[in-house]
């Protein structure tokens, strides 16, 4: 194998590694984004339910 062929193959392997790492990075970032979205959604639900609990059942029975 010539030096040029060797360099070419090494370069290809490096590109494959880089692609693999990039895919891994994107996958991890996506899962972090989903976790943050779920946490925010959970907080919204929590605030809503706690508000109902604090106001009590009379909130549905108030004079309009």
């Amino acid at each position: 194998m010539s030096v040029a062929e060797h360099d070419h193959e090494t370069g290809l392997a490096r590109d494959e590694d880089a692609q693999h790492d990039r895919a891994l990075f994107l996958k991890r970032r996506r899962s972090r984004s989903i976790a943050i979205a779920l946490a925010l959604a959970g907080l919204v639900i929590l605030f809503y339910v706690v508000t109902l609990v604090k106001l009590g059942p009379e909130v549905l029975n108030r004079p309009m």
Partner: protein
Amino acid sequence: MDFDQTMRQHDLHLTAGAAAVASSDRVVSSATVHDYWQLMKPRVMSLAIFTALVGIVAAPGTLHPVLALTAILCIAVGAGASGALNMWYDADIDAKMGRTRTRPVPRGRVAPGEALGFGVVLSAFSVLILGLMVSWPAAALLAFTIFFYAVVYTMWLKRLTPQNIVIGGAAGAFPPMIGWAAVTGTVSVESIVLFLIIFFWTPPHFWALALYKSEEFARAGIPMLPVVAGEETTRRQIWFYSWVMALTGLLPAGVGLGGPLYLLVSVVTGAAFLLLAWRVLRDTDLESARKLFAFSILYLLLLFAVLLAEPAVGIAAFAPLHGGWV
């Protein structure tokens, strides 16, 4: 710098196992959700959840189930935030011990700055939400607990004195008191008793571990009792604190928290704890310390589980001995 350039730079760091790449204009994390979960010390968090639940259930008065769940969630997140701040500050010594070197920061999965930011944000959220939605006295206690664990224990005592876990152990003892305050809005003798059980349980529990991990603590430069004062002193101290802990374990039956089942369990498990502590004192092998460490977890679990179970099965607690003077 465009995205592709940033990504290429990031790829190099990913391959090397780095946590994050700092380019000239952005920082990109490569941590997984699991890494962040590990930052929160889930096992410590589960103990905080369990003991806080006991505090809520044992407290006189009622708390709406949604608010009780909110309180427990905030206490759990606050405990997790303390864990993240601890891992941020202790990354250097964590990397030197087998027990802790796979934590996300020393492993390079989460950058120290990320752990710090994560801990600070979670601390603020947990305290504010607990205060706004449940009780400000409970929120104040939670804020103090986080401060105590992150600053007093982690930053100050841990590397300074062999009494680090005796004083620092208070941080782990607060959750039932916070749960109690979430219901009653106050601190009373009963919640102090729950605090004291965990407070006096921590030294024999942690020193039993320190006995068979003393080389690691020495390598990391942490002045744990066996490293500084030797094994014999540590064994004597374990024996002393085991007695204090076993006697403190009886107190819930005297302050109106526990009934006959609690008294029975606390006497039997306390005696078993003392027997194992006696073996640690007498034997020079480390197997007895391993057994004491394992049993100490079961001991605490059983005491608090019975406090939770007695009202559930209709067993009434004894009348408080302190009557109306507190």
